[in-house]
Each structure stands twice: as C-alpha cells, then as structure tokens.
C-alpha cells in the first residue's frame, strides 16, 4: 500500500510545506489589537460559560457550543431563550481561530465580531449589549478583572475580545490522520487510508475541503434547503449579491465526527448521510456550484470515506468549567426537555 501513503502524503503536503510537523496546525493567528494574556483568556472562559449574557440568564455560549459535544451542539438548529429555535446548526468552536470568516454566511470577519452576535440575536441569547454590559458591571468580580485586563469597566468590546481570546485556545492536537502523515503507519485503518484516497479523488472532497483545516475558507452552494419555499439565502444575506444565493461557508472537517448533525441547517444526521447527499450531486437549484456532480460512489467507498473522516478527530483541549464571579453557575449544553438539569 505504498502508493496510498504517497497519495496521503501529497494530501498533507500543504501542512508539511507550510508548517513543518510540530502539530497539525500552525500557531493561532492573534490580531494585533487583541493580544493573548492568561488573564484575558481566564476572563473569556468565564464569560463563555456565563448564562448571564442572555436575557433570562439561562443561555451561555457553551449552551450551543458545548465542550462535551465537540464544542458544537447535537441539536439540529440552535435553541435559545424560552425554547426559541434558530434556523442554523451551531458550528464548532474547535479550531475556529483559524477561520477567516465566522458564521455559516461569513458575516463576521473575526472571532471578536462573532462573539457578540448571539448575545443580541433574539432567538439565541436575546439580550441587548447595553443590558449585558450593565449586568456585568454590577458584578464586582467581573469589574475587577476587566480593570486588570483592559484597564476599563466592562465594555462590549472587552467582552468580545475576552471571549475571542478564550476561543483562540480551543485548538485541537494531532488526529490519527496527522500521525499517519507523520509516519505512524498504523495510526489509521486501511479503510481510512482508502477513504483519504477517495477524498482527494473520486469523491471530489478536496475541491472545497482543502488545506490544513480541510476548508477552502470559501462559500459554496450545494443546494441545502434550496428546494424549500423560502430557502435560507446564506452568503447573499451578508453580501447582498444574488450570485451568493444559497452559498454557505465550507466548514473545516477536523473533528467532524463529533459535531453531528451536519450542514448549515443540521439536516443530515450522520456523516454517511452527508456523503449520500454529495453522492447525489447535492440538491439542484439555479445557483448550484458547478463543482457538484454525482459521484457514483459504491457502498464500500462511502464506508471508507466515513472511516477517513473519523480519523480526523484530534486531541481535544481539556477545559474544566470555571468558577463564575457573583456566584452564578456555569452553563454548558442544552437544557433538558424538562428545563431543569443541563
């Protein structure tokens, strides 16, 4: 199976060529106006798990981006305050520090910009930034930390920067596939090796899922939801360009096995379901990406692709729930159906 190894090494060539192999990913890019400090990361972690950022003090960032579920959510779409539901599936925070665009439609260009979005989204945390700032300024523990980290009282800008700084620490370590590329021949199964070959060939995955994150950091219309009466316009909502209708960000595929369900609307439950969708060539619509063609994969080839995708699960960051200032309990994961234990 030497030739398979060569194909896989070619696939990982970008990683090697650009970053060597100290790990699967390069150092996290840090914006000049938001340098990382331990204190800021600690503050950001508290804010990330703090439900007081929401209108009814029940929803935290970690409600939808739960460390226990791959820093995403196994619900089909977001569920926010009062059981309100959104229209899109929660993307994972894992390795999001490397993404050039945030949100499925890419409307946020940075983690800082993204961090505030859900707070004032009426179906997520449903709060106003003014209220959140006022609430946190009433909690001495937060006021003290903001003074220490930013030299100011609590501000929306500070909240965004602290949460973003914390999220930049949520980076995964090597996956079995990375170890395989590094020379550990038995790190992945023969099926996964075959799947990697398909991934970069017959299954056409790398035409979009390329590079160290397995994302081209671009937007594509694969037809999801475009057969509905009122489809989600995706990228068009952000750019107002009709050519972007139905396009959504190419998600990275590291740890993808953990972050079901899939696609921007959570409409596919399993990796196999997603592969079936692509095997059919997506869903026809006038703006369907011309890269999409039916694949004619066999059943065993689909299984091999699943095995390969499962081999992309890396070492996850270990994060303990923080102690929150003011005695509130950190919140992670969705409410139980009874609305009680999380």
């Amino acid at each position, binding site marked *: 199976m030497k030739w398979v190894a060569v194909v896989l090494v070619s696939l990982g*060539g970008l990683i090697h060529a650009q970053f060597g192999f100290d790990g699967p990913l390069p150092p996290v890019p840090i914006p000049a106006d938001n340098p990382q400090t331990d204190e800021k990361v600690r503050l950001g972690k508290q804010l990330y798990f703090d439900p007081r950022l929401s209108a009814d003090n029940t929803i935290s960032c970690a409600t939808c981006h739960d460390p226990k579920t791959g820093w995403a959510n196994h619900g089909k779409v977001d569920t926010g305050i009062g059981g309100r539901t959104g229209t899109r599936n929660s993307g994972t925070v894992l390795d999001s520090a490397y993404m050039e665009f945030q949100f499925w439609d890419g409307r946020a260009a940075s983690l800082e910009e993204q961090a505030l979005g859900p707070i004032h989204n009426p179906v997520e945390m449903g709060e106003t930034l003014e209220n959140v700032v006022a609430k946190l300024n009433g909690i001495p523990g937060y006021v003290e930390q903001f003074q220490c980290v930013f030299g100011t009282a609590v501000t929306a800008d500070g909240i965004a920067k602290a949460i973003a700084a914390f999220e930049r620490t949520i980076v995964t370590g090597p996956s079995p596939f990375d170890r395989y590329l590094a020379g550990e021949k038995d790190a992945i199964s023969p099926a996964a090796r075959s799947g990697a070959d398909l991934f*970069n060939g*017959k299954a056409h995955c790398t035409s979009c899922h390329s590079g160290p994150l397995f994302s081209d950091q671009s937007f594509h219309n694969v037809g999801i939801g475009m057969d509905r009466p009122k489809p989600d316009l995706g990228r068009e909502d952000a750019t107002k360009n009709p050519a972007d209708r139905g396009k959504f960000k190419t998600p990275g595929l590291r740890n993808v096995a953990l972050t079901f369900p899939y696609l921007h609307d959570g409409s596919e439950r399993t990796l196999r379901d997603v592969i079936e969708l692509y095997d059919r060539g997506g869903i026809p619509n006038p703006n369907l990406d011309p890269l999409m063609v039916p694949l*004619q994969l*066999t059943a065993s080839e689909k299984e091999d692709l699943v095995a390969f995708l499962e081999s992309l699960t890396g070492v996850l960051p270990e994060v303990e729930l923080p102690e929150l200032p003011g005695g509130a309990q950190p919140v992670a994961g969705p409410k139980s159906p009874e609305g009680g234990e999380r």
Partner: protein
Amino acid sequence: MNRRILLLAAFGLVAALVAFWSPPASGIPVFARKYGYNCTMCHSAFPRLNDFGARYRMNGYRLPGEEQKERTVLESPPPFAARVHAGFDYVNSERDPQGQDVTRFAVTGFDLLSAGLLGQHIGYLVVYPPSLPEARGIAGQQGSLEMANVVFSSLGTRWLNVRAGRFEPAYAVFSDKRRLTFTPYLPYEASFPGGPPLSETQEGIEITGYQFSGFSYAAGWINGSSTNRLSDFPEDLYARVAYVFGRGEGQTSGQRLGLTGIFGRARPQAGAADRQRHLRLGADASLNYRQLNLELQYFLSRDQGPLWGEGSEVTTSSGSAQLNYFPMTSLAAFARFGLLLTPEEIDSDAWQAVGGARYYFVDNLALHGEYAYRSQQLQGQELRAFEHFATLRLDWAF
C-alpha cells in the same frame, strides 16, 4: 498456442508482482499535479474522463466556479507529463494481406504532453508522440504533433469558446484519445479510401458552448479530407448538439444524447480536379446507471460514388455499443461490439468484439488486459478475413 498462453500468463504474473512491489510512480500528470488532486478527481478510470473532468475540459482547463483562483503555467508546477504503455501483444490475422502476426513484448505508445493555462481565459494542450525507431522490444512510432491547440474559453459567456490548432474534433463523441480500450472504435475507422478516419486529430477551428448538465453545441471547420493539406482549401465542416438529462455530464452520471453531422468535399485522388461530397450523420447516447455506463453510437454516411471508385452514391452505416463497468476505483471492465455495413458493390462489412479490464495499482498505473476479435469481408474475396488481438500491458502516466 499453448506456449503463447503460458507466455501471456507468465507476463501477467510478473507484471502484477513488479507493479505491486515496485515504488509508486513518482509523480502525477499535469493537471492533477497542478491542483494536488488524485487522477480520479477527473478520470473515472484514466484516461476516460468522469463528469468532473468533462466539466473541467469544457471550461477550458479551469475548475468550474473557481476560475478566479486559477494559476497559469508560470505560476504552477512544470506543465509536462508523459504517458507510456508497454506489454505483451498477440496479433493473429488470417487472410488479410495487410494483417500481421505478432507475438512480442513491446513499448507500443509513448506520448509527451503539456497543458495548462496561458492566461485566465486561455488554455492550451500539446500532445507529442516522439519518433521512435522500430527496434527490439519497441514497436516504433512516427513522431507527430498529435495535438497542439489553444482554447479561448468563456468569451463573454459559456456559449462561446474557441479552440484552434490541431485537436480532436467534437464529432469523436467518445474520445478516441481517452478511450478505455486499445482497440479503436470501428465506426471511427470507417471512411472512403484515403479519407480521414474520425479518430484522427485535425487542424482547424472549433467553437463550443455549453450549460453544465444541459445543452451543448460544437461546430468546426477543419482540413479533414483535404488531400493536400498544404494547398487544399479546407472544405470540411461539422456540427454537434447534445443534451444531458439529469445530473452530470453523461460520462459517469446523467444521460447524454447527441446528434452529429459532418459535411465535406474531398478529391478522390490527390490532384483530381473535382471535389466530391461526403456526408455523415450520427446519433449517440451515453447512458449511466450506478457504476454502469453504456456508450452507443451510430453513423450513416452518404458519399458521392467517385470517392469509393463507384459511379453512384455509396451509403454505409456503422455503429458500436460499449458497456463499461466501474465496480470500484481500482477496476474498470469493458465490452464492446462494433459493426460496419457497406453496400454490395463495396462488400467490406466488418464486425468487431472487444472485452477486457483495467486494474489500477495506483491512479496513474494500470494493468490492462484486452481481447478483440475482428471479422471483415475483403472486397472481391469469398472468405472473410479475421484477426485476434490480445494484449496485456502496463499503462502509466506521470
């Protein structure tokens, strides 16, 4: 005969062992190398294109929808590649004065290839089989510029693309250069004496337009049947329309139907004063179901008699049906039947049956086994000539 079968089996075993334990080919051909893709991105079984590859070619060697990200040849790895096939051939002809009896190991094909983008809308392709003298173990080939063309793609719209130079015209519906078999398509070989077989590349200009998974057209003006290509004014024209039903491009998915017409005027002999009309009309289909593909094509030709040395118009018909099966990425199997019917005065009916398989050790290295039988009526002779052809070859591109 037993000795030949033993030789064939021994070669198969050795080829399989050598290929299995040998290092992989050190590179991948030019387009795959440019993008870092495996060959199977564009080929269902190299050299045959899949739907993605068909779109890439239609789009002027640019990834559809990704045109803005494309790199030219100056920004990409060196745009050179080669294809070689070598192996064991067995040819046995009976009662054919032009036939041959061959049992040998041979290098039977060597192509040098360069392709890429010269600019955002300008692609090119050059295929050059260098001249190889006949020698022990080498079948020999004439050096020629098999293809050298520039394609100006999407000139304001996908409905206007221009290819100029020497190229494979669109009337070769199932590309003779990318066919799975080593045995040529019988309908493409059929022509009036001295006329150009459809498998031959041509100098000229071709315009094309397309909609992915939909309607496409092509029209061209080529040297074609010019008897003296240096001085004869080209008078061969062709046009083709095709429509894909369903998803895909009819290569591995979707159902493609097409109509082709070729009209030309040729001299019966070099230097003859008058040109004579020849006309060919064709219909074709490429039908797909899961991993199965069925290629059907039919041509009806009506040529003025002098082109055949006859007084009155000569009508011939030819067709072929090929079933391809791709049960897995590493295996392709094929079976084809071809038929040529000629009028009584020409008396050159022929039929052909081909079967075989290709096993891919890697995307760009295949072990190819094929058997073909051809039976042909020889004009004025009572008994038919026939030919057995069997080959076991390694076919690789790098």
